[in-house]
């Protein structure tokens, strides 16, 4: 687990109204990394740049320790990907679409594919256009996992899906991870999915990486604090990443639990969830929008 499976270095992409600004991060082998941020924060652009679906302005991407530009075909053979929408031909049957994609991979494994189709109760004769959102995601996952990929990249795989299908997907990811040397990178704005399965978290906002942290450490070092409005003053405010006040008291998120405890011995200190932490880091900015 020492080698980085994916290294993104100074990735920059300018659009008229949005800019991916010198993005740096790396994924550790054997880990599930969650890529979080609000809609429009740059998650999809980052993923598309990695996959070459968007042409980057500058920056370097290394996969499995090698430069992507130099060995694109060989390296992409080891990636499976699931995009949020539209890279299937709607009028094809599942089988015909599979035949198109399977041809692109040197290690396509029909038996694995068929076992997923059976497990997900999909019908190969059906047209893509007639698939429900959940079925479509399952089909995409079946395709992504049938060529012995080492890295699975997914863009918002769970958005718009019901909790049952989401939890099924999480189980599949955990199964995939049982084999040594596998890694998963997926973006989402549904942070509760990550609560269960992520090892690392990367937060992006306005095209910039805000943090890249171990999930458990993040949850250990950040807490939610509640208490009396009278305790909030210029000095104590600095202890918090964000403070929300109501007429009855305040609610805040901090990464300085001990200092807060010292100045506010009676404060209620609770475990924070990923969503609390994410909003604490990006919240202020968005209010100003």
């Amino acid at each position, binding site marked *: 687990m020492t080698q980085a499976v994916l290294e993104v270095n100074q990735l920059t992409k300018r659009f008229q109204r949005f800019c991916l600004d010198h993005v740096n991060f790396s994924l550790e082998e054997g880990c599930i990394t969650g890529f979080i941020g609000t809609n429009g924060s740059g998650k999809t652009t980052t993923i598309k740049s990695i996959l070459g679906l968007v042409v980057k302005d500058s920056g370097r991407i290394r996969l499995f320790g090698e430069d992507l530009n130099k060995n694109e075909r060989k390296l992409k053979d080891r990636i499976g990907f699931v995009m949020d929408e539209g890279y299937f031909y709607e009028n094809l049957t599942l089988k015909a679409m599979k035949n198109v994609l399977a041809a692109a991979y040197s290690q396509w494994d029909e038996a694995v594919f068929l076992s997923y189709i059976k497990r997900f109760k999909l019908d190969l004769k059906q047209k893509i256009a007639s698939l429900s959102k959940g079925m479509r995601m399952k089909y995409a996952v079946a395709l992504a996992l049938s060529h012995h990929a080492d890295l699975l990249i997914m863009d918002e795989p769970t958005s718009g899906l019901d909790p049952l299908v989401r939890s099924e997907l999480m189980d599949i990811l955990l199964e995939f991870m049982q084999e040594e040397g596998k890694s998963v990178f997926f973006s989402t704005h549904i942070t509760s999915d990550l609560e269960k399965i992520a090892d690392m978290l990367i937060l992006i906002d306005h095209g910039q990486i805000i943090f890249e942290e171990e999930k458990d450490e993040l949850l*250990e070092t950040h807490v939610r604090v509640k208490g009396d409005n009278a305790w909030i003053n210029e000095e104590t405010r600095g202890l918090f990443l964000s403070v929300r006040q109501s007429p009855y008291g305040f609610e805040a998120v901090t990464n300085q639990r001990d200092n807060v405890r010292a100045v506010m011995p009676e404060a209620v200190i609770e475990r924070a969830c990923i969503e609390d932490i994410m909003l604490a880091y990006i919240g202020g900015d968005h209010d100003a929008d």
Partner: protein
Amino acid sequence: MKIIIQNRSNQPLYQQIKDQIKQAIMTNALEEGERLPTIRALANDLHVSVLTTKKAYAELEAEGFITTRVGKGSYVAPENLELLIESKRKMVEEKLLAACRMARQLGIEKSALHEMLDLLFEEEDER
């Protein structure tokens, strides 16, 4: 083996896992040579990150409680008597230290503490 994670505890998760595995080894709930779950399997079962279980195993290995063979997994290390005695002593020492501090805070003298200890030992023996 029993491992219970407390989310409300101030102790880091990896520490909790490490301590409980250590205890299982010291009480022979985990026996010498026994295979430990893989870091991924343990992480899934405990709902923690694989990085956390990895950290716990790494420290257990550094302290000599388990050995890891690449590609084969982790096992409870052959019993090292000295290490075992030392760890057991350390556990008791920690509890005694807490008792000493509390006694000092409450103004209980050292001699009274000695008496208490003797008495407690006798009571336990009689049982």
